């Protein structure tokens, strides 16, 4: 199975190609240009550089993340899938981030800046057999809540994600267990992780492109305000 993976939930635009369980290539750019300008040219370079064959499945980082980034990825993936008549695998972004530390026994805590004083985060670890185990389901949380949970478990933890850039000081102050903040080359989203996750999820997770919707983990502001008013 040839899997093209697309990651556009955060700052980096990233694409990777996995074939027969091996990563054949990965391109990641953090140029400050919009994903709309970079993502498809970068995917084109990747495919040309890896033999130019069309993939069987497209894996996409489904969210949470930047609403606009997620949608650029989602819409492009849907177009590609319809053009190639390929299926799609939706990969939860936080779990794909946890794949940065595949096989680690420590707690793995991806944190993405969700603005409005919150983070998108979750707590994971790799149990026996290199299986990702979810200790705290991915969601929009107050950072404090996540850190208290980690302190309560009392194991060593690895933090990663762009949330660690913004909240480094808070982490250093509040975390009472041994911890590590991932180095920049392993800190952010990567399409290779999305590809690996999809590869392990397997063919039974393939859905038609039209059935894929990003996982925003948040309502739009207008919907929230309307719900608060109880309309």
């Amino acid at each position: 199975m040839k899997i093209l993976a697309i990651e556009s939930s955060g700052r980096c635009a990233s694409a990777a190609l996995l074939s027969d369980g091996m990563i054949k290539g990965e391109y990641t750019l953090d140029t400050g240009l919009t994903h709309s300008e970079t993502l498809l040219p970068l995917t084109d370079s990747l495919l040309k550089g890896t033999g130019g064959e069309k993939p069987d499945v497209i894996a996409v980082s489904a969210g949470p993340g930047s609403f606009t980034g997620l949608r650029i990825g989602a819409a492009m993936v849907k177009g590609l899938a319809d053009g190639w008549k390929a299926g799609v695998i939706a990969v939860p972004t936080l779990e794909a981030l946890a794949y940065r530390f595949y096989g680690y026994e420590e707690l793995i805590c991806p944190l993405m800046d969700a603005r409005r004083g919150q983070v998108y985060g979750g707590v994971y670890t790799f149990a026996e057999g290199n299986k990702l185990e979810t200790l705290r389901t991915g969601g929009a949380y107050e950072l404090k809540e996540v850190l208290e949970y980690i302190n309560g478990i009392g194991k060593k933890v690895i933090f990663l994600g762009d949330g660690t850039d913004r909240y480094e000081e808070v982490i250093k102050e509040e975390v009472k267990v041994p911890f590590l903040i991932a180095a920049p080359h392993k800190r952010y989203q990567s399409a290779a992780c999305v590809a690996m996750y999809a590869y392990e999820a397997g063919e039974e997770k393939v859905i038609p492109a039209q059935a894929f919707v990003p996982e925003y983990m948040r309502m739009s502001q207008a919907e929230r305000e309307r719900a608060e008013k109880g309309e």
Partner: protein
Amino acid sequence: MAGVKILAIESSCDETAAAVVEDGRKVLSNIISSQIDIHTLYGGVVPEIASRKHTERICNVVSEALNAASISLEDVDAVAVTYGPGLVGALLVGVSYAKGLAYAASKPLIGVHHIEGHICANLIDHPELEPPFLSLVVSGGHTTLVRVEDYNKMEVLGITRDDAAGEAFDKVARAIGLGYPGGPKIDKISDEGDPDAVAFPRAKVGDSVYDFSFSGLKSAVLNYLNQCRMSNVEINTADVAASFQKAAVDILCERVDLALDELGDKTFALAGGVAANKHLRAGLEEVCKKHGVKFYCPLPVYCTDNAAMIGAAAYYEYISGVRHGLDLNAMPSLRLGERI
């Protein structure tokens, strides 16, 4: 070049649309998935919700368009998409999808200006209509007087300095309790009102004869309503709607009248969502008649946002060799006549 089939996609505001158009004039399919019911709950288009809905619906809308045209993606000669102007998040869905589709299916990609699309809606089913002609685009986001020199050459004569005409219709409709969308509701209730009941101003823009201004008119309506309420005068909604609409139509007709006088064009084409307004159509038809000018207006289904008009405009880009790259971006403030 004959038999050119273009798959066109439009998602600049709150309609997710796809169409297949042959040779720029013949619509093989025209699918529109409207979100109006959702946005009505909020009294106007919510950009984030619009973008989410486009993402959910785009695959189905495109496959319906191909099915309804009884063709497959392989039979398509090019993929066209609106890349501006409009809501950036909404545009990005169509642009990203179209780029992915065109790339994977190895088809040329053509980005189309939304307003050029509206103007080109007049070409549909009108094989005899050819540039040059004068056009007025009136919608919820745009009020633009354009001279169409050639298919790919548009000269803007006048634009609105503040609110678009359709925006003024929506705001006034909300103020008099008609709700959203305002245009059709004001059009309808005006039939029962007296257009001369209230004298609202017809603003001119000092330094430009062709530019429009609607915010003064809108404020005048709001002030009138406030005054009535403060002095306990009963408000006749139909009279206010009819008087406002008359003023708005007069503003639009006056500019067209002047332009036809000055430029001597023999053809005029109305376009945009507000073109469905029967009082505006009647007013402009009269102006055209006075000048001996042939009046064109698309069918109502091609007046509001749709993808068939994008396919019509894209054909002339296609035959003149326009192709866009994989880095095509959404351009929320793309100017008319601008090419990237």
